[in-house]
């Protein structure tokens, strides 16, 4: 019984400690991020390319099929009420407010987040971060911050691209295959989707961008410098990002809807 209680206590202590470390790590990044953005824009642009442009394939492919599924399911449901012409509104609101930011964050974590964590973890395992420290170069400013900012900047754009291709997917299935009226599809969407709806998605994508990028660089930076340690850091990146994004999604939705 005592062992069991001790294990719970140690688990809670470890969790609180890691949350504290993550918070301090975030403050350290936040303090020096503006300076890096101004003084070393080239480093940030390179990371926007690595995290953003290199994720385009997975975003476009997944976005298209998510939209197509949404078109099929939406049509099947809406036609029961004779409201299939509202397919455009249904798909767009689902995507812009929920599916777009959440799925993009999860896909970003799987593609770019794991790449960031393993890259930084391997740099630690091969003494590259220690070598930088020895050259009087702060690895947090030179390596971590550009990668963090690259992810934060890329995420809203990836979300927008995901949404656009997914709406096209829903249009393709709904209008081309199922015969929903093209004019009704676009006009209902235009009439019912407000700027406030879009803003909800933008706010979520910004928050998820910060969370997914922060967790990726943190897991890589604090990884145990072995092959197994880097592997675990990569896995933890996906797991912690998925859990955090889904919890935050509920909290943000509750806050934004009021």
């Amino acid at each position, binding site marked *: 019984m005592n062992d069991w209680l001790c294990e719970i206590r140690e688990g809670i202590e470890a969790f609180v400690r890691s949350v504290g470390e993550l918070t301090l790590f975030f403050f350290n990044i936040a303090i020096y991020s503006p300076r890096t953005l101004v003084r070393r824009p080239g480093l940030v642009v390179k990371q926007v390319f690595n995290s953003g442009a290199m994720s385009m394939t997975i975003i476009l492919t997944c976005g298209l099929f998510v939209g197509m599924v949404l078109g099929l399911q939406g049509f099947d449901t809406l036609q029961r009420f004779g409201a299939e012409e509202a397919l455009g509104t249904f798909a767009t609101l689902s995507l812009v407010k929920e599916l777009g930011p959440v799925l993009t964050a999860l896909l970003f974590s799987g593609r770019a987040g794991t790449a960031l964590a393993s890259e930084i973890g391997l740099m630690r395992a*091969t*003494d*590259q971060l220690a070598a930088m*420290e*020895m050259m009087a170069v702060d690895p947090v400013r030179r390596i971590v911050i550009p990668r963090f900012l690259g992810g934060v900047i890329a995420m809203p754009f990836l979300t927008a691209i995901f949404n656009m291709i997914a709406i096209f997917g829903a249009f393709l299935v709904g209008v081309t295959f199922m015969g929903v009226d093209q004019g009704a599809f676009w006009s209902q969407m235009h009439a019912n989707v407000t700027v406030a709806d879009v803003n909800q998605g933008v706010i979520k994508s910004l928050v998820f961008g910060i969370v997914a990028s922060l967790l990726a660089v943190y897991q890589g930076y604090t990884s145990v410098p072995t092959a197994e340690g880097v592997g675990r850091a990569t896995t933890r990146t996906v797991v912690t990002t998925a859990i955090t994004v889904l919890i935050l999604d509920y909290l943000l939705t509750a806050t934004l809807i009021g």
Partner: protein
Amino acid sequence: MKNNCPESIVEIRDVVFFRDAKPIFNGLNIKIPRGKITAVMGPSGTGKTTLLRLITGQLTPDRGHVCVEGQDVAQMSRDQLFAMRRKMGMLFQNGALLTDLNVFENVAFPLREHTDLPEKLIRHIVLTKLHAVGLRGTWRMMPSELSGGMARRVALARSMAMDPEIIIYDEPLAGLDPISMGVILRLIKRLNDALGITSIVVSHDVHEIGSIADCSYLMADGKVIASGAPDELRKDGNPIVQQFMAGMAEGPVPFHYPGPDYEEQLLGKVAE
């Protein structure tokens, strides 16, 4: 800041250091004279690399002082530590080249980070340093295209890029072919003699490093057990020193890590 040890460029006084409750150093004392080549030798696991990390401030001793140019490294702020490191170059065992930069950019890295030199001058410096280690022709190659020995030579060029006052070499000869080994040895010696650089060399290569070192320290059991010129070490009566200098398997330093009885373990009588 108070100058604790003004005489030597690096002084280690009564240093005690534990790693995971295991004692690595137990009252270590070493003085590194300015402008000389100092060899630090010892059997595997005696903490030679740990010693280098203490000197560079990557680790902090549990007790005692590690002083560089009279300043206690443990008392330095991060800015002071970085200012000290700008005067140092360190060659890591595996080279530790930045894998996303090519050879040229690796050597140029500290120059780009710490100076505003024009591109033309950076190019000149980088090619000069690469030429010194015999790898000017590799300037476009990525670290993954280099052999282990070549990567270490590029790392040596990088450690020289800022013309440091102290260069720390962690096993600089490991894995090098005889030609490269000779070149690197002569380079360490020439840098030391021509520029007055202080060199600290951690190595197992007793004879090669002994040929260029001005003084040597032999470590065992967390302490210095012998010091002096390499010739003096060879004449030392301490059996550990004799075993290490002669490279003998039998002696006070066991070749085998402590374990259960060999025969009993083979017969499966030892619990897994």
